[in-house]
Structure formats: C-alpha cells, structure tokens
C-alpha cells in the first residue's frame, strides 16, 4: 500500500438542482496511473477540476497529499496548481496568437520558473510528441491533433506531481496516440502520478487501475 495521494471524502456535485454525484469516496494512492471512464455528463471533468482546485464541490472535500483543498487560501491553491497538479484540458485552452513555445512557457510566468531550463524542457517534450517543427508556429496554424499534444506538453512543463489529463488522445491518430502513451509511460517511470479521463481503450495499456464514474458511483 502506498501513501494517500488524493482522497475524495463525501464528495457531492450538483448543478441547478440536479445531482451529478454525491457521497463519492475514494482514495488514490501513490504511485498512481488511473484511467477514469464514464459516460458524458457523469462528472469526470468536474472531478479532475476539483482535484486541481479549479472547482469547488457542492459538499464534501478533496485532500491532495493530505491537505484539504478547502483549507488552502488563494496563494496556496496557486502553488498547488503550479507544482502539484498539471492540467491538460479536453478543449486545450491554448492562446492562438502565441506560438507553441510561448504557450508551453506560460506556466513558468506564474511559478517564477527558469526560462532557459524551461525552453530545454519544452524542446524535449515537443521532440517526444513530434512537435519540434512547430515550436515557433502560432497556435492558430496548428491542427487539432497538434494542439492536443501541445496542451499535454504544457501540462507537463512544471513536472507536476500529478498529471490530470482530460481526453488526451481524443483527436489523435494511432501513431500520435502511441507517442502520447510512450511519453506518459516515461513520465510515470520518473515518478509522476497520472489521472487520465478517457473514452479510449488505447490509453488503458499500462494503467494501474480503471475507474468508472457512472450514475454518481465511482467504482
């Protein structure tokens, strides 16, 4: 048994009267590579947003590395997002007027990071995801698949303790999905914990556990 990484305690989420889930209890232990599956609208994205401290649960609490996110002030939550978690969004959230490299360096502005080391890290990640040729291209010139890989690379920039990825291969062909899987494996080997929301069985290769969130039940 590893140490508790993420603990969900009596977690509930309700949107305008309808309950998405409630009494959700789960402990993710370290090391962790978990795939979270479930039908659309089951609350998967909300759940990883809560773990990232981006959304607040209707009730209950989320503990990450033993600290309740509800007890953190704004500054501590910022540090949590800078160093503990890295988010790769389903809809990418890239800045289209900036280049791929500039998008990847964005996290460094808030974490007071080393930009020269950050550029090296960005080049390594882009090489692993076959994006090196597009490093200086504006995001608006990239394809959907390239954007998806770029969003994942940005989430990995600060070497977070936990990667929270929402459908990271949803727009990718088999070859690029393989590259993503390979990168996730190598990050996992370096000690990163992965919680990946997916509908794609391809990503299930190598995961420690597969969880299903359906009808408010996590199992």
């Amino acid at each position: 048994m590893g140490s508790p990484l993420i603990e969900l305690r009596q977690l509930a989420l309700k949107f305008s009267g309808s309950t998405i889930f409630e009494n959700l209890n789960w402990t993710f232990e370290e090391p962790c590579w978990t795939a979270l599956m479930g039908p659309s609208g089951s609350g998967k994205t909300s759940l990883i947003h809560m773990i990232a401290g981006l959304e607040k649960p209707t009730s209950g609490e989320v503990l990450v590395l033993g600290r309740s996110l509800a007890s953190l002030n704004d500054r501590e939550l910022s540090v949590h997002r800078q160093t503990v978690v890295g988010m790769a969004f389903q809809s990418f959230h890239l800045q289209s007027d900036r280049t791929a490299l500039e998008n990847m360096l964005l996290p460094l502005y808030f974490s007071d990071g080393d930009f020269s080391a950050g550029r090296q890290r960005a080049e390594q990640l882009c090489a692993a995801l076959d994006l090196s040729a597009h490093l200086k291209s504006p995001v608006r010139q990239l394809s959907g698949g390239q954007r998806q890989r770029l969003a994942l690379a940005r989430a990995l920039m600060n070497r977070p303790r936990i990667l929270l990825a929402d459908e990271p291969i949803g727009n990718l062909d088999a070859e690029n999905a393989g590259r993503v899987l390979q990168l996730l494996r190598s990050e996992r080997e370096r000690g990163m914990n992965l919680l990946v929301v997916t509908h794609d069985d391809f990503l299930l290769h190598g995961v420690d556990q597969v969880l299903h969130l359906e009808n408010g039940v996590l199992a």
Partner: protein
Amino acid sequence: MKRASLLQLAFSDPRESLRKTWPLLFGLVFGIATWVVLTGFTHGASEWLRERVGGTLPNRVRVSPSRSSFGPLALGSNMNEQTVTDCKKIPGVEAVYRQAHYPGPARMYAHFHTQNMVTDMILDGVDEAQVAEQLPDPSKFVDSTTSMVPVVIPRIMLDVLNAGISSHTTLPNLSEQALVGQVFQMTVGVSSFAPGEATNLNCTIVGVSDQLGPNGPTVPMAWLLRNAKRPVEYHTLTLKLSPNANLDAVLRETEKLHLVAPDLETARKIGQASMLAQALAAAFALAILLVAGVGIASGFTVKVQVEQADIGLYRSLGASRRDIISLYLVRALWLGIRGATLGVILGLVVGQVGATLILSLLPKALAEGVTLFAPSFVNLMLAMLVTPAVPVVAAWIPARQAASLEPGRILRGH
C-alpha cells in the same frame, strides 16, 4: 523576480500591440497632447511677456517712487542721491543704477528709408553699467565731450515703433542690427510746444536694451548730469542683487523708503495669470483624460469578458488572484506609459509647428528671439506621471472582476 515574469507576460501579450490598443490609447494621447500644447503656449507667452516687462537680465529690480494722485494733486516722494545711498545699504544689493529724464524738452530728427521723422520726445539718462551687458560694444556708451552723443534705444520703444510700422506703412521693421551705428539729430531745450534756447546734438545709436522701461532714447547719465540746466531727479533706480539675495527682504526695505517695484508687481500678476491659465489648461486636459479613463474602464471590462478563457487558463496554470490583478494593472500601466509618451511627443510637435506658424505671421522684428511655445519641465513631468495613473485607476475594478472569476466555471464555458 516573479513580478518581472508577470511584466514580461503582460508586455509580450499580442493583444497589447499598438494597433490593437489604439482605440483605448486615443483618448490618452489626445488628452496629454492637449495638456502639453495648452500649458506650453500659456507658459511660453507669459515668459515672453514677463521678459518684455522685466527684462532678460537676472537679479535686477526696478524701483520708483510710490505716488498717488487725485486730479492735479500728486502725493509722493522723489528720488535723489540720498535715495541711491539708502538703497546701496540694503543687504543683498550689489549696485544701484540711476535713470532720469532730461529736465527739459527735446526733439528728434531722423531719416529712415526715404522717410523723415520729426518728433518731440523725452530724453533719458542712465548709468552706463545698467545697460553695458546688452550692448555690442559697451565702451561706446560713455560720456565724452565730443559732439557725437551715444544713445541706447529701449527695446519696448522698438516694439511700439515696429507695431506702428507694420500696421501703417510698408517700411521694413527696425531691428538692433539695423539701428546700431545709425546717426540722428536731436535738439534739447526746445520742442514744438516749448520754445527756448536749443542745443543741437548728433547722436549715434550704440545698442538696444530691455533694461530701460518705456522711455525715450537714453544717453549716459554722466552726459545728462553735465548738460542739465536744472537739478535732475531720478525716476527709476535699478537694484542689482547678489545671487543669494532675499528678494522679499529687499522689497520690504525699499518699501520703507517709499519705493515700489511696478515691473515686479506686473511680472507677478503675469505669473499669477499664467498659473491660472495653466491650471485651466490642465483642468481641460484632465477632463479629456477623465473621459478617456471612463472609456478605458469600459474597454477593460470588455477585455475581461472577452479574455475569460485566458483568465481561467492562467488560474489553472498557477496564477493567483493577485497575479491576475497585477497582469491587468500592468497592461493598463503599459497603455498609460505609451499614451503619455505618444501624447507628449505629439503635443511637442503640434506646439512647435503651431508656434512656428504663428510667429511666421508676425513681423520679423517682433518675432525674433520669441519663444511662444515653451512647455515647462514640471508640466511635462506631471503629464508623464499623471497619464499612466489614469488607465491604472480605470482598470482597477475590471482587474478585480477578472480576479474574482471562478476558473473552473469559465473554463467549462469555453
């Protein structure tokens, strides 16, 4: 260090390019350019007027007897050698220069560009040192027993003559260069309304001075004292002050001698009027800046709405609420700095071009050496300091609104 990173992020934002922020910049640039132009002209005009009244030499005060009159009854003191001695004793006074009218009538005969001029006039005498600094060759303005008398023309007399020449004739204007070395005839002791024994003189103009006040042609005081048929009373004394003299203390002492400094008082009034005019100009510019500020506040509110996805992204990448506020305020400050710089440059260019155009319409002799547009350093500094504060204040509420957005909710919405 982190602040530097945030500055870098704000400055590198493609949405902050000059092309994209121009609508918000316009009000700032217009307001600050208006400020620079209006205060520059007000300051320049008042400085020019002050120089015309008080002269260009520093540390000098012209005093004359205080007089009050009621019809034919005039009350007041006259100035004589005792007054000069008393003034010399005032702390801070380095020298006292005397100025007096010739005690009798005088008449001038001059020839200028085929035109003959005959006029009654008042002849003045002055201590040589009073005007020496402004003469091309001071050694020529000394008393001598030769038949050629050196004369200095008061600057203000030249201005009046040139204004008349410009308005009523096609003759060229008089300038110092044109006048120096010219010779004219003068008779003293007689005028068109005062017949008497005349003495004919040949006079040569040796310079022009702004230290003589609104008086007639001026000869050396020694010549005047030597040739006056009656006792001479001084109408003006010029006190030359030491550089560290306390002007107010000197004026208190001259007041005790029943002397007043009308030029200084006029200069003070010009200064007050100038301050008021500059304040009005600044208030007008501030009103424009206020309107610009309202526009910027609206612009930033729209920015926050449009950039919600980016705000959510920054929060998800580790930006605190304070970082978001800082980002927007830095962008506002950057807008203000660019607005101030462009506004000052535009104001200086427009002011300079405007002044050149105005001066080109004036007679050359009047326009020569005149700085109509003189923006003061203080006003420029104020503009550079106040302008950036406008967008920062205007962006404060939108920045706080941006920081209060829930990142999860806005990311879900995009």
